[in-house]
């Protein structure tokens, strides 16, 4: 850890992921186990009316899978960009301390700043275009 020359000083094999696999399998087993055990003791009297979708006591009109206005479609796109950004920032952030300790902190800072500023410009553009609003305002276009 103390040697600043070694930036990647540890490596782990795939075996450290074993408990995660065990936990995921446990999750699946517990879920289906509980649901199946419940199947033995719970009542089952299905009727057509009971198995309709809940619509406050009325019979449901049509399906829920219909066209409707998905708000924040653009926000979803911005999310992907920012998510990739944060994924790319993790390696840079984890070596920053070591670079700083050997005196290259300023250089790394400028690189991080450059990267973040491009994204800030992107979100500022979206903001000014009104894509972050609930109702995309037309007034911002007219200006």
């Amino acid at each position: 850890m103390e040697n600043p020359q070694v930036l990647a000083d540890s490596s782990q094999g795939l075996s450290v992921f074993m408990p995660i696999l065990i936990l995921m399998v446990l999750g699946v087993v517990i879920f289906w186990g509980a649901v199946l055990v419940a199947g033995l003791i719970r009542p089952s009297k299905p009727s057509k009316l009971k198995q309709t979708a809940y619509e406050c006591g009325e019979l449901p009109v049509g399906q829920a899978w219909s066209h409707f206005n998905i708000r924040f479609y653009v926000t979803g796109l911005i999310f992907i960009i920012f998510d990739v950004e944060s994924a790319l920032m993790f390696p840079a952030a984890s070596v920053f301390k070591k670079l700083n300790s050997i005196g290259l902190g300023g250089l790394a800072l400028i690189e991080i700043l450059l990267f973040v500023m491009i994204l800030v410009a992107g979100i500022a553009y979206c903001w000014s275009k009104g894509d972050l609003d609930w109702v995309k305002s037309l007034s911002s276009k007219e200006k």
Partner: protein
Amino acid sequence: MTDNMPQFFQELFHLETSDCLTFLFYFIGAFILVNIASVIGGLATYAERKISADMQLRIGPNRVGPYGLLQFLADGAKMLMKENIMPLMADRFLFNIAPMLCLVGIFATLAVLPISGNLTLAHLDVGVFYVVAISSLVGLGIFLGGYASNSKWSLLGGMRGASQIISYEIPVVISILSIVLLSGGTSFKTIVHHQGGLPHEWFVLHNPFTFIAFIVYFIGSLAEANRAPFDLPEAESELVSGYHTEYTGMKFAFFALAEYVEVFVLCGVGATLFLGGFNVPFGLDTFLSKTPFPLLAEVVQLGAFFTKTFALYYLVIVIRWTLPRLRVDQLMSLCWKYLTPIALFNLIGTAIWMVYFHDQSIVEIIKAAGSHAGGGH
């Protein structure tokens, strides 16, 4: 400090390392961890009802067991005996798989939750990154649950859940990044190692930017766990019950369990990143690990971790019963117009602080300035 739990026990009991034994330790550890997490989730529902009762001058559950403590077991038994109703028009496969995705996503994060130095199942090098990545499964489960039900309430709840969870991931991740900057690694072990037992050694008081980052992280994780004031996906006064309107019995129970355990995990991650994690004040744990009972050190560390986590959990519950729910547009503008720019500013601010003050925390700077002034005389 050892790398993982089996290694610790093998060294403790002087056992020979074998793959079979490692698997056994992992399996027992995972089983115990899942049970503890489920009990914590159950007790959290009890705590939620009891604390809300306190705040509203009611009594709350007090019939089952001492002080009503076993209420969650009674609830579980009740859920077990409820009829399983699935809408005829629903997508059967996705409907069944959605609560499972929530549960699996949350259980998988438990492996890296740093409850103590050696009892943690795996100290992954990519710890924080892994938690952020795998907890997205919960958002997927919520969206699929809402979509597969083929009910309008569920679909609206699912859509809200999806947009809310993905949006609030951004400020949370960027706040985490400023901690990664400070600690120089994404492993929870590294992050805890760079903090100390006393509050002035925690990252939350390292510099003003991390203090704001903690607040941003906390607000963001409230929204990620669908907790009030951000419980829009299941807003019972507008959407009946949101994405789990059509779920009954055990499947609903697992949605609820996943939600409560997720709050616990997010509080635990918050306590580790910002509040010193399992560090014990005055080096008590290093002292105890040199005595003939090294497990005592783990117990003390567990105590430190759980105290901080449950303190945060208490705060989460109190917030739920204090603040009114936000509107959807307010929710989104809070995330994209306030939290995200603030989090980006924090990230840059932390980086500049590190370069300018050479990694020193604010307390260290004050101390150095004090000793410098004192040395002048």
